[in-house]
């Protein structure tokens, strides 16, 4: 129980120290707003904030779903065929090391549709962990078990369905958890780069706009919302992982 409370207490302590410092040192709110000012900024416009959150979340979740389907699917294709593996592997790595900040403007121009371009950017960022984890999960089934399947005349589809996919599930889920955080980061980065040429409604866009207008408390409120979203996303995916693997 002490260990459950420790992070919350530490957080409260840090927030208290922050608020005290800001007040005692008379730091102007346009430089560093205190926690109270930030919460107040959120409640000055809660509907708009939550709408922005919904917009960013929609991009994030769509990108995560696409990354899971694409990453999982390509990992399975690689597991089934050496040729597919040789064809896909180097491109997947290239996709991973490509800095999204550099190509996001191009993607925004090429894709045209703002929502789709944001999803494409976030998917590129989120793709690799779920792909790489699933691939190593599919390869993780012990050799003896693969031999056993061979002994009983199982074809590669049976081996895939009864052995390799179940063996890969925990890997896929932990990859999904990493990709979840990255999808959010990718969505934010893409919104930043796209600026007003993008969706013009997400949390990142709001951070950008409030920064220009010196609405620093609002900017921090959007930032805090983003962090909370990241934590919630991580927790939900962690819960999915635990529920799915409860039986093992």
């Amino acid at each position, binding site marked *: 129980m002490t260990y459950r409370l420790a992070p919350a207490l530490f957080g409260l302590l840090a927030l208290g120290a922050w608020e005290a410092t800001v007040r005692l040192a008379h730091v102007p709110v346009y430089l560093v707003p205190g926690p109270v000012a930030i919460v107040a900024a959120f409640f000055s416009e809660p509907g708009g904030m939550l709408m922005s959150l919904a917009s960013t979340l929609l991009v994030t979740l769509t990108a995560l779903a696409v990354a899971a389907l694409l990453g999982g699917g390509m990992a399975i294709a690689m597991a089934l065929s050496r040729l597919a593996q040789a064809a896909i592997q180097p491109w997947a790595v290239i996709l991973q090391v490509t800095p999204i900040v550099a190509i996001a403007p191009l993607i925004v121009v090429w894709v045209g549709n703002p929502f789709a371009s944001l999803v494409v950017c976030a998917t590129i960022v989120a793709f690799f962990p779920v792909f790489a984890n699933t691939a190593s999960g599919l390869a993780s089934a*012990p050799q*003896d*078990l693969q*031999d*056993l*399947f*061979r*002994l*009983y*005349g*199982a074809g590669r589809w*049976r081996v895939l369905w*009864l*052995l390799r996919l*179940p063996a890969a*599930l925990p890997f896929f889920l932990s990859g999904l958890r990493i990709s979840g955080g990255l999808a959010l980061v990718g969505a934010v980065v893409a919104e930043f780069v796209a600026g007003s040429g993008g969706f013009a409604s997400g949390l990142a866009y709001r951070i950008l706009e409030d920064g220009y207008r010196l609405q620093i408390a609002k900017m921090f409120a959007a930032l805090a919302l983003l962090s909370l979203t990241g934590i919630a996303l991580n927790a939900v995916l962690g819960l999915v992982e635990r529920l799915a693997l409860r*039986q*093992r």
Partner: protein
Amino acid sequence: MLEGIGRRFADRGTARGVEALADISLAIAEGEFLALLGPSGCGKSTLLRLIAGLDRPDGGRIVWAGGAAPPAGQVGFVFQDATLLPWASAAENVFLPLRLAGLSWDAAKGRVRDALGAVGLDGFAEARPHALSGGMRMRVSIARALVTRPRLLLMDEPFAALDEFTRHRLQADLRALWLQAGCTVIFVTHSIYEAAFLARRVVLMSPRPGRIASEIAGLDQPEGAARRMHAAYAALVGRISARMEEIAGGDAERGAVP
């Protein structure tokens, strides 16, 4: 029947590779319990994999009584690890070979129950591997090998990782299962006691390259608890040990042992 089996593994260090098995010839009778006994690295596991069809020999051939190699399900294999599916229950693990043979659960569940009962795991059908002890996991593995009623059962040091008490119990149960089932068993082990207790015939192998060094007839009587206590068993262990010493000594003279 094995005729002049040879197997060589590629090795970067040597041009010709490592010779794992050289000129192995061995006739195995239907229904016999054969122990392949030898130190680590004598190729006994390799030989077992060749018989199972999991690997191919570089030389020689395997001749089957029926002509062709037995179809899937006629050969059971028990590995050193239980190699169970960790996400599946004991019953689902035992069901696996029948499932791969195309049987539905409804058609197979009677046989699965019988196989679990034969290895003394009544009441553990729903248990997952992580909830079972090492010995019980190995029992599931044996039930999985027996559920197809194989003509040939291949076992690769299945009890080597278990504690001595569990090992003794499993050996006794395996011997009883074999007497009852009547299938051919080829049992790889590096334990002289295990080979002496289990087998009707003990084949001694020596390493570098793996080859058959000698053969000793096993014990027919007594069965049951008296077997391990019997003077004939102790004498057999002594005989095998002495023969192993001779073989190792001969190897040392030829410089085969570093």
